[in-house]
């Protein structure tokens, strides 16, 4: 992904897209026949989902398609009924979530999960204190605060932040784990247009400058078109389509399932 850091403008997107669809990148995440049943309901049905290192992938699909379930199976919050998850060449299916995180996974939850009663600084400290101490810790905390745009709000309680600031804070915390793959569950739900742009910039910046691969669940098609290299459409627990934004947008079948089932703005 070194090419991707050259440009700082929209042309970069094209570069990353080319890389993602190119040949020589490594697979960082791969699910193999992943299946999750809740009683009689099959939420995820035999899904083979792969992500390349440094790729920026969006995962879309109507409500109830199984997107969050797939993410939970990847992080280990849920155990699969069948199938396996491979991360950086190792099977991680049986590992606890914190062990997967230590292998280089990271997640931002759908509902912003920051520690509301702690200050912003204490929030940022938690992921970093495990990885660094001394002056390095201080520097990384300062960097994370600055990158989240919260340097001047470091000493207020996280509960006092706006919804958008909490999203930024949680992305900052998830990113400060130095992950190879960062999973974002609806990072811009309920945000204003400006805030969406900020989050989009943040994601592309992390992707390009730090080569973090992303899987982003999002309903907002403009946002998806803005950031994604590559899109996976999930429908009724199965992989429905995969392809570039143009291919997906042009696909009449995708239009059909979305217009049929999609109600979210």
């Amino acid at each position: 992904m070194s090419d991707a850091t050259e440009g700082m403008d929209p042309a970069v997107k094209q570069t990353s897209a080319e890389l993602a669809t190119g040949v020589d990148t490594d697979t960082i995440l791969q699910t193999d026949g992943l299946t999750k049943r809740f009683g009689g309901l099959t939420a995820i049905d035999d899904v083979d989902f792969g992500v390349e290192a440094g790729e920026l992938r969006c995962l879309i699909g109507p409500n109830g398609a199984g997107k969050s379930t797939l993410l939970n199976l990847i992080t280990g919050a849920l155990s699969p009924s069948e199938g396996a998850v491979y991360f950086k060449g190792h099977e991680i299916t049986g590992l606890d979530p914190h062990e997967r995180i230590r292998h280089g996974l990271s997640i931002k939850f759908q509902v912003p999960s920051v520690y509301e009663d702690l200050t912003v600084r204490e929030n940022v400290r938690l992921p970093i204190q495990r990885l660094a101490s001394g002056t390095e810790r201080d520097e990384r905390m300062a960097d994370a605060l600055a990158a989240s745009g919260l340097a001047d709000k470091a000493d207020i309680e996280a509960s006092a932040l706006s919804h958008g600031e909490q999203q930024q804070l949680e992305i900052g915390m998830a990113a400060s784990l130095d992950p190879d793959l960062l999973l974002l569950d609806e990072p811009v739900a309920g945000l204003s247009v400006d805030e969406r742009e900020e989050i989009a910039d943040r994601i592309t910046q992390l992707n390009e400058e730090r080569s973090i691969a992303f899987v982003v669940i999002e309903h907002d098609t403009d946002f998806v078109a803005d950031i994604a290299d590559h899109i996976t459409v999930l429908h009724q627990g199965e992989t429905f389509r995969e392809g570039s934004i143009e291919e997906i947008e042009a696909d009449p079948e995708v239009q059909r399932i979305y217009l049929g089932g999609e109600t979210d703005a």
Partner: protein
Amino acid sequence: MATESDDTATRGPLGRLTAALHGPNTMGNSRRFWYLFGVAVLLFVFFPLYMLPSSVTNMSQYLSLALLALSLAVVWGYTGVLSFGQVAFFGVAGYTYGIVAINVTGPLGTMAGLVVAVGIAALFAAVLGYFMFYGGVSDVYVTILTLVVVLVLKTFLDQTAGDEWTIGEAALGGFNGMPGIPDLALGIGEPFLVFDDFTLFYAALLAVLLTYLGLRVLLNSDYGRVMVAVREDEDRTEMLGYDVKRVKLTVFTFGGALAGLSGVLYVTYFNYISPSELSLTAASLPVIWVAVGGRKTLLGPIVATIFIERLGLFLSVNVGDWAFVINGLLLLVIVLLLPEGLVPGFRDLVSWLGDRRSEGETDDTAEPTGEVVE
């Protein structure tokens, strides 16, 4: 605050200790707090000079129980695991100490009894905690399960009146309990220090003081911050790469050991233990102490334990059977009016008064008013 590690690098060992005692997780980070703290410690140190001997020995009982309250403050207040089982570890340690100290005579027996009792209490907590936390028991089910453990243990101990429940020289004694438990003593062969009356008071005072300071360091350390993170949001903490189950198990085990220490000091005060220490009432008392004092503090549980126990004694002397009713009502009022607890309520009152005063006289208060407590 912004550059913690710079501070610790430039300070000496004393500076490092001071830094370790302070942080967002404990109250009282100002100079004024430590002055008041020093005065309070001196009042305790000279307590025997101005109080009746009976008050002093009573106080050593309350101080022993304050350790039990602290054990719950760590487990519940700071890690979010509401345990009704602290008295189980307290009781198991008390009985274990009795069995060892009665059988192995001399100070070595009592010292061994202390170590074994605290170890057994910790082991008991570790086994129970392992099956709970790794077995997927959480939240309210931990509370129920720990309470059931206490009641099962009490029911069992009530049945131990027969001769078959005599271990060496020590008879468990059923609901009559186990009398003749020796005082803690230091020495080899002949004891050179026996902890009874005043010496037990000072031992309990020292134990509470060291535990309080030690817990301040723990709670403001990286590990203490993880404990608080587990309390606030287990899923988020797990997804930051922390082993939440292991944190809960470790803290629960530590809490068991601390409750065990409390149990040993307590039985050496009465030289006696009975299953009533594991009754439903006894199991709920630590929860009340911690809730009334302020569960997200360390001082709160200590203050509340002494206050509630002393008040209980006062009321039972003066109003007899009404003591429980009045005490209960009073605690209810406190919890309803001050949901965060007595000590945080007092802190808020002090800073509110400070605010009012600084509004009245504009100058003269260069110090920020929040400084009193934060």
